[in-house]
């Protein structure tokens, strides 16, 4: 075996190195040094992220394969990994105050180790070109998350959430495996490219349709698409806020891209009519049901859970568009979504840490007591709702344009429904703003000072919300990268 092919996996190796260093630090450093662990991990991952942007260092500037084609990388793949890295760094920055607290003393190392392992798993998922590797990545990204959800082990909700998460995850894995075994039965291989060729001439059979449906269901769990989403709200609510934010952006973003790769490479254009119609139905239901539930929530984390369900529906528009532009738009959407959602979670996390309040009704009058936090929250809500000139507007605009480029009448109808849903979503996002700025109730949350790390996290996310849309170069870069990666090669 040629060990030099490990070098193709530069970004995975970088995360692995960070993981090992954190592990060593956590294990061998004296107990007092544990206080510095959050900062240590954040800086290391930041270095790995920065290195990923440098093409000669870690980021692959060209396409390459390893391990007999089980693993592949290309500029667009290293771009999505960079995006996820950025998101993970922000999550880490926001979690510094939480992880640095005293009751986390003996556990904080585990939090970071588990998080880095899941990140590694997600990378494998994205780069896998063989279902074996894919499943390893998938489980690597799923199972540690259950432990992370249960991190507040003394809290009842946290345990409940973990149980719900692990049970649903196991079940969804089973369904997914079932789908894979159907696929194997049809194609006789687990390589994406072999499967595509083997299945191309097969015609549509019940087994094929069920295989596609089960694969979609399996990924739908990770993406929390309706009706595979029911765990989401309970888990988001019960998990520690840092874990919730990680689940809602990084886990979702990686799954979305992996999903696009599977659909494009395994089922491809031949069966596009099958899976596109399935997705079509799922997108409509996801966006609508997510919105309908989000309207009624009072708990902010639950509220963002449903909002993230409907956002996942918008992200899926990038898959159904199935062209270079929609792929770039999807990545841009994920990037913007990371910043907007993390801004919201940053505010929620800060308020929860300082006061323990987590309900929307507690946010009444926040603009008077904590005007800056209220401003951040408002910008995050505006961006999530897609109000110009914030980044969320541009990401929605591009993802709609990308989808419409596909050109069929059905897509126009789909985009129209998605547009109507943005109006519904505007209603509940503005509910938060209304609570903070307009409701006359006595402020519940008293003025408090947020910590440095919380402020840094909010500064970064707010800067992203304000600048990502106006600085066109980000989207242009993604578009060029996806052209470079030659989307046609995905369709084979």
């Amino acid at each position, binding site marked *: 075996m040629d060990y030099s092919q490990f070098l193709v996996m530069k970004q995975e190796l970088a995360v692995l190195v960070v993981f090992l260093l954190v592990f060593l630090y956590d294990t061998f450093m004296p107990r007092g040094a544990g206080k510095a662990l959050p900062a240590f991990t954040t800086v290391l991952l930041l270095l790995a992220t920065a290195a990923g942007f440098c093409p000669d260092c870690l980021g692959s500037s060209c396409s390459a394969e390893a391990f007999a084609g089980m693993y592949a990388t290309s500029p667009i793949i290293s771009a999505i990994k960079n995006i996820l890295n950025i998101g993970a760094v922000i999550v880490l920055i926001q979690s510094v105050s939480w992880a640095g607290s005293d009751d986390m003393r003996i556990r904080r190392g585990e939090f970071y180790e588990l998080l880095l392992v899941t990140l590694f798993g997600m990378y494998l998922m994205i780069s896998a070109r063989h279902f074996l590797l894919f499943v390893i990545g998938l489980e690597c990204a799923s199972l540690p998350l259950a432990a992370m959800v249960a991190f507040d082990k003394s809290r009842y909700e946290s345990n409940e959430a973990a149980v719900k998460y692990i049970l649903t995850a196991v079940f969804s894995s089973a369904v997914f495996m079932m789908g894979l075994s159907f696929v194997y039965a049809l194609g006789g291989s687990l390589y994406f490219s072999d499967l595509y060729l083997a299945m191309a001439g097969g015609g549509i059979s019940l087994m094929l349709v069920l295989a596609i449906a089960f694969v979609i269901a399996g990924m739908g769990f990770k993406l929390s698409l309706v009706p595979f989403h029911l765990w989401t709200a309970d888990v988001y609510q019960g998990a520690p806020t840092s874990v919730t934010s990680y689940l809602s952006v990084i886990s979702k973003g990686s799954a979305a891209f992996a999903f696009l790769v599977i659909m494009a490479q395994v089922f491809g254009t031949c069966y596009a009519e099958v899976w596109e119609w399935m997705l079509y139905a799922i997108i409509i239901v996801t966006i609508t*049901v997510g919105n309908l539930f989000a309207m009624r929530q009072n708990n902010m984390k639950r509220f963002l859970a449903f909002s993230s369900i409907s956002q996942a529906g918008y992200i899926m528009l990038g898959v159904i568009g199935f062209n270079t532009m929609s792929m770039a738009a999807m990545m841009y959407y994920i990037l913007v979504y990371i910043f907007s959602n993390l801004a919201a979670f940053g505010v929620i996390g800060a308020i929860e840490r300082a006061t323990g309040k987590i309900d929307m009704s507690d946010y009444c009058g926040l603009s008077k007591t904590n005007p800056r936090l209220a401003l951040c929250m408002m910008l995050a809500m505006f961006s999530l709702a897609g109000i110009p000139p914030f980044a969320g507007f541009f990401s929605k605009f591009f993802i709609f344009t990308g989808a419409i480029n596909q050109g069929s009448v059905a897509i126009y109808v789909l985009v129209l429904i998605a547009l109507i849903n943005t109006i519904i979503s505007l209603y509940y996002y503005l509910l938060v703003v209304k609570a903070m700025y307009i409701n006359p109730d006595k402020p519940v949350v008293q003025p408090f000072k947020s910590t440095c790390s919380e402020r840094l996290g909010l500064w970064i996310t707010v800067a992203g919300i304000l600048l990502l849309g106006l600085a*066109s170069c980000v989207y242009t870069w993604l578009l060029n990268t996806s052209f470079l990666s030659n989307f046609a090669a995905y369709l084979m």
Partner: protein
Amino acid sequence: MDATLPILILAIPLGMFLVLGLAGCKMSHKMAGVLGCLGMGTTLVLAYTTAFTYFFSGSPEFVNAAGERLQAVIFNHTWLAFTDKLVIRLGFLLDPISAMMLVVITTISFMVHLYSMGYMRDHHGVYERGFQRFYAFLSLFSFSMLGLVVATNIFQMYIFWELVGASSYLLIGFYYVKPSAVSASKKAFIVTRFADLGFLIGILILSYYTGTFNFTELTSAPVEGMADVFNVSETTALSVKSIFESSATPVFLGGSVLTWALVLIFMGGMGKSAMLPLHIWLPDAMEGPTPVSALIHAATMVVAGVYLVARLFPLYLMEVTALEFVTWVGAFTALYAAIVACTQIDIKRVLAFSTISQIAFMMVSLGVARPEFHHGLGYMASMFHLFTHAMFKALLFLGAGALIHAIGSNDYTAMHGLRKYMPVTHWTFLIGCLAIAGIIPFSGFFSKDEILSSCLGNSTFIYIWMSLVAGLTAFYMFRLYYLIFWWKEHKIPEGHHAPHDQPWTMSLPLVILAAISLVAGFIPFGKFVTWNGHPYDFMAHFDWSVAAVSLCVAIVAIVLATAMYRKENPLPDKFRAALPRLWEWAHHRFYWDELYLFITHKIIFDRICRPIAWFDRHIIDGTMDAFATVTHAASRAIRPLQSGQVQLYVWWYLLGALALGGITMLCLL
């Protein structure tokens, strides 16, 4: 040319706006003012360097072997690419007129920044409330105006055009506790926005047929490898024209598509430059602080319309109908505003109408410019007048500001006989009046003379018309001058101190601008700014007979004004009695505002808006309410789905997956 300087020219004012706007309340008033002045001063130096490099470096980027000045695109960043053709770019275009505008804007803006340090405080030296906000808005305006003139494409121009309008709105309404200021800012915004609607439609028509937004492609020959040649060769002019004349492009209401596009674009210019009938906002805009009037409503923003026509001049040349439209709008506006200016008693209103009239001069000059007459003399004259007018009108406004600051009123019946108390203001104001009246050797004489020469080259009728307006100009300016500085003196009441000259921050800009107005006429403008970049000798086109006639007209008008207003005498009342109807109409600005009020309130609001409002309130809102009710009901109905029981979740999951496969299978079979 390196892109650093141009980027800084735009970035510094924008950065100043952000700093002063976000952190202004944290710093002292003085700090904010000094910071604003420093920022603008730096921009001024950079802009001068850029313009100097453009005009004098002789680099092949800016001037070709034949000595013709070229358009240079310093940078052109693609901001948003919707499709291959629908691309919005933000860039920096350097050509004779944009370089000239850089100089004008930064000069006036710096003077105003400096002047406001003295003006925006009361007699005890206490700064006005919102002083930092004022400087932030000034910076925003400077940024927008600079972005407008250097736009590489018409869409960028439109973006900055709107930004300029917004900052003008903010500055007119600076005293937002004063109801008149609030309504004036609203009026300015609505009227110019209405005009910009035409502008936008014009842009869309033009770019739809030509497939480009870029000025270089719209107005010049796309020669291989030399895309930015400024020359409009005969062949390309024909090719763009042929786009519009081919059978594929329709004729609408008797005008070709190009005519409509150009007239609609000009409508945007009419709004910003306050041409008849969209002029009504400018006199009211005088509610803003006086330095703002000097900067925005005299020297820079209001000439944006002229700049727009100049920028697209090669296109206008293809469609003489549109140019004639420009001419006549300008001619009527010039006469109208000059007549009204003779009867106003508010010093700033007189200057406002004078501005309208002078901008109309520039419009007429562009309208009558033809390449066959002295290399398109009118184009050069228009730009020349833009330059000189910016200087002397800013001078007059800042002078008026000094008077208002000293007296505390806009009304010149409260002034009279101030020449002894405020000598600096008096002398600089006199220089401004002489310049605008067109007395040799002040700058206005030369530029106005060029305009009249080019009018004569086009039609004698226009020439006589505009000469008459020039005479009126001299008359009302000297009426204003005598009524402020001569007439009868007011007695200073016991216990009050006499009005006096202002602090140096206010005097210095006056003196500098007066000096510029004194000598600017001798700039050989033809060497720098011509319609096709081909320089020519200025004096070769100087028509001494026209000059003599206009000088005589001006002197007669001044003599008349002296006779009537130097001392208190019954002559003005006699004139008024002789033409009571005309005086009444002119005093009420020919009832334009009343006409607008009638149309908007009685016709549009009552007859059109009310039924629409009913429709909106009942039908549209009803539909929306129904949607909301349905949504809420649906939201309530599906609540049980989220039961909290994990075994049900799994059932739903499995059912969902099976249903997905099953239904798809059924559909495909």
